């Protein structure tokens, strides 16, 4: 079966979800960029980071296939963020109590 003969549904299968995800990512990028100009006081940083986290989550779940992958890979993927959290919290016991 030559590639050209492959049905439209094959191409649809490989393009649909990624394209949908990419569209969400673009919308979120537009949102975060626009919101950066909206005065929210100290709220600007958390909002932008929240949007970044959602974008990262989408890339991870769909592009990196974590949503459909082995639980072990999800565990490995979570180790990085969890350990960064530990770094932040315990450094915080110093910096935020000085």
């Amino acid at each position, binding site marked *: 079966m030559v*590639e050209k003969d*492959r049905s439209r549904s*094959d*191409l649809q*299968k*490989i*393009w649909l979800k*990624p*394209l949908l*995800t*990419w569209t969400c*990512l*673009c919308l979120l*990028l537009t949102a*975060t*960029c626009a919101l*950066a*100009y*909206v*005065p*929210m006081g*100290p709220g*600007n*940083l958390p909002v*932008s*980071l929240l*949007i*970044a986290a959602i*974008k*990262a989550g989408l*890339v*991870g779940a*769909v*592009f*990196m*296939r974590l949503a459909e*992958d*082995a639980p*072990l*890979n999800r565990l*490995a*993927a979570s*180790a*990085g*963020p969890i*350990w*960064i959290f530990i*770094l*932040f919290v315990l*450094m915080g016991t110093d*910096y*935020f109590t000085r």
Partner: protein
Amino acid sequence: MSDAYLHPPWKDLNRQHQAVTFGMWVFLASEVLLFGGLFAGYTIYRDLYSRGFLAAGHQTSIVFGTINTAILMTSSLTMAVAGRAARAALLRTARLMLMATFFLGVLFLILKGFEYREDIQKGLFPGHGFPLTAAGAQIFFSFYWVMTGIHALHVTGGLAAVLRLIIASARNREWLAGSTSEEATALYWHLVDVIWIILYPLLYLAGRVNG
């Protein structure tokens, strides 16, 4: 065919694939922590010097930054499609998407180069001649140069890995269908995108609010 893609000690291509993918995820954990120290330092100093950080953040180029973010996100799209195409044995599409990924990555680096030039022309390298006097503004840019510099190194490494896939699949039309390293390369590339997704608000969205 499958034996040609087996590396010792593996006897079964599926298991090799699982191990390579898992191994890459473990490595990615270390990459996340590599940038984690930078994120922690940035957070500490932003809390300490919020005025200076906002003043400094205002000086980064939102145009370059946003376009580059879009470029990397799109390169992630093409990389994801390449992987799906390879798994569906649509090998020509896969190769095309890999080449698109490579092209977008190179474009990212080129734009970064122009951006760096502009930054230097504006004197935004900490030290003598730095234009901002607010406390902590120089530190913001210390993080800017190191974060984007180390990230750019990772983009370069990723491009080398993607190029390897392109060359191997050019030599052997079936290569992408049998090899287990495509997915690992893809994961690495996506992480490079994720890191940038987090760097973007830290470096480009700070201080955009006027006044």
